[in-house]
């Protein structure tokens, strides 16, 4: 992968919102982060509807028997290079659903996760901070 593409990627991140059986709190916070108040288009971040257009998957919720297969399919359909961000404590490790009868595995054992944003739910500021840290990590890798 050429450095130019990666550099352009850090300035234009098209986000796909993959709901993996969440309780919807994290999803509302993600939508909050995309509102004009925080204005993520300043950094080229746009919400897309199709996984084929996406550079970044925001995964919320706990993978269970129904969604674990689908989240893996979705990851395989994303054109590479792409990143995965786990938003919320559920996606980061399952928290209180860990002992549940329909809990399969933590998300990062199903697909590679590049950034964890814990919180129940995380604030929009926390999500933006996660994205910024990921962008900085990619940029330092280029140099």
């Amino acid at each position, binding site marked *: 992968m050429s450095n130019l593409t990666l550099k352009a990627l850090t300035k234009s991140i098209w986000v796909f919102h993959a709901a993996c059986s969440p309780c919807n709190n994290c999803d509302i916070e993600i939508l909050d982060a995309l509102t004009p108040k925080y204005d993520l288009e300043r950094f080229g971040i746009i919400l897309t509807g199709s996984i084929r257009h996406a550079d970044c998957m925001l995964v919320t919720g706990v993978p269970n028997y129904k969604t674990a297969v689908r989240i893996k399919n979705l990851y395989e*359909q994303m054109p590479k290079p792409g990143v995965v961000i786990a938003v919320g404590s559920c996606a980061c490790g399952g928290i209180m659903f860990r002992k549940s009868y329909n809990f399969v595995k933590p998300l990062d054992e199903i697909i590679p996760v590049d950034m964890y944003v814990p919180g129940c739910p995380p604030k929009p500021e926390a999500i933006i901070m996660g994205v910024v840290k990921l962008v900085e990590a990619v940029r330092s890798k280029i140099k």
Partner: protein
Amino acid sequence: MISFLIFPGLLFSVICGMIASFIDRKITARIQWRKGPPLLQPLYDIIKLFGKEIIIPKSTSPFAFLILPFLSVIAVALVGSLNGVIVKNSIPSFSGDLIVAIYLMMVPGVCMILAGGISSNPLSMLGASREIKLFISYEIGFILSMIVVIIKTGGSIRLLDILDWQVNNLPLIYTLSGFLSFIVSFFVVSAKLGIVPFDIAEAEQEIIAGTLIEYSGAALGMFKLSRMMMMFVYPMFLVRLFWYSSTGSIFVDSIIFVLKYIVVLLLLIVLRNTNPRLRVDQVVRFFWKYIILIAVVAIYLAGKGV
């Protein structure tokens, strides 16, 4: 060849299209009380898309799937180089180039329909069928408004003759029939660009990305690029057909020309930001009931010589 590849054609319309796309996004952001993207944002988007992986659906023809975005870009670039008639000696004007331009401006729409049709995805099929309905709605009005131009300028289908007529007499927009047909083609261009009141084919909230849903990587980038170029080329075409005037000096002329283009672009952006998306049936009704009526009245007035 140079006039196609570099100056009024491909490269020039890509650069100007990116600037137009930036203006569009920035003004949209300011209207929504945001700060908006940086100047190079369209360039970043395109470079990123060109570096990404292309995924081709299993049950489609890879050749057709990949050739359509290129056709779309080439058609828009050709219209762009036909726009260069105003620049002296860059491209010769031939008899019937107005008709050629009208046909070339249909090509991106046809490409979108085919792209939706062969993507083998239910939502893209839906997008393709909506694009066909949009196409049927606006194309008649556009041709009728072009007929007004032809009648007013003494039956000429040569772009240079139309420009000469406007220089010798007055810009078409200052006559009543010319103004009416300018309104018609303004709405048609808005529909051809697929921006908000008429973006039923790409309705993000209803059918995700419509016709483009299966496209990724460079193929998607080509489609986005042709959209950006259309943002520059089509309003430019309108300004040239309806609002062309000349003072003799090329420098002053081009400044006035760019200002007129920016006025048309701003009108398009304001229309985009102050209107909700129309339903499919509302689009068809809008074009067939009102726009075609206006166009027919304009032809009648042009026949009377008003």
